[in-house]
């Protein structure tokens, strides 16, 4: 993806980094979907800096952080997904991502 909506100023991750979606408890609601929790993906693009949604929804005075497009293999998300080439992308704020330091064995389909 060539789009890069704002120049990142303090992004932890760069394009191509392997990341994992963390599975955090949250107080009210979260825009991080259950189906990607714990799944590994790749940073595909930067989008913008913003408050994380949980903070924004209740107007707390939170810091801003970088948002990213993360790309996943469908076979890493769903058990027995039949098509090896298919992918899925979602957008995530930085705090919902952690670096993958070792390459875990990919799920077999």
């Amino acid at each position, binding site marked *: 993806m060539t789009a890069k909506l704002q120049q990142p100023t303090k992004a932890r991750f760069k394009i191509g980094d392997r990341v994992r979606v963390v599975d955090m408890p949250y107080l009210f609601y979260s825009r991080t979907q259950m189906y990607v929790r714990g799944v590994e993906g790749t940073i595909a693009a930067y989008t913008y800096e913003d408050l994380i949604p949980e903070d924004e929804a209740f107007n707390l005075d939170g810091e801003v952080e970088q948002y990213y497009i993360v790309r996943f293999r469908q076979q890493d998300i769903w058990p027995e997904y039949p*098509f090896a080439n298919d992918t899925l992308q979602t*957008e995530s704020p930085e705090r919902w991502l952690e670096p993958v330091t070792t390459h875990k064995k990919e799920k077999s389909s």
Partner: protein
Amino acid sequence: MSASHHHDHPHEHKAAPTVDEITDFEVLEIAVRELAIEHGLFTAEEHRRFTEWAESIGPAGGSRLVAKAWTDPEFKALVLENATEACKQIGVDWSEPTGFGTPSDYTHLIVLEDTPTLHHVIVCTLCSCYPRPLLGMSPEWYRTTNYRRRIVRWPRQVLAEFGLILPEEVEIRVEDSNQKCRFMVLPVRPEGTGGWSEEQLAEIVTRDCMIGVALPKPDRKVDTHPVRKALRPVGSTSQESSK
């Protein structure tokens, strides 16, 4: 729905047909709106501004954007690098009607480029976010939990229900717009459109093509997917267990 003029007939001048009854739905909408304003949930002015905006949007903007991208490589590069700027050039301003966009469309648009080996389809699993300034109001099927849940899990099945079947070698990439970015698909320009004008090209870029559930074709000007029940709706037992 055009008026017909029959001056040589003694009949009354025929106006365009209207639904000639006041339904309780119509009355309910007004009642909810008036009470909401009276209870301070929003102002009449805010409502008026958003209504005007809602009436101004439609898929024509998206069609023009795609047609121009197909014929103008510099414009296409702008579409992919800075989509909201490209939109301004074809007359769509994402900052309307507040100067900061709307509370569900925002101002962060990304256009996803299809290639012969990569096909995008958009969804919002959490609600039904949609690039309304470019495509107008989302179609009803896009808003159903049926589409939203199944397109991420079984994209090829859902696309097949729309009549779109792609070979396994083509990567199908589902884009779930779960935050503030909004997405639209830039389809591959089809064969058989050589030498076409932008206007001709725009005619075959329908809303479904820009969502990613259809491919543009030289002879296809209308989205005609049937309004139908899914083959394997959410909750059905004929499929694998969900998630």
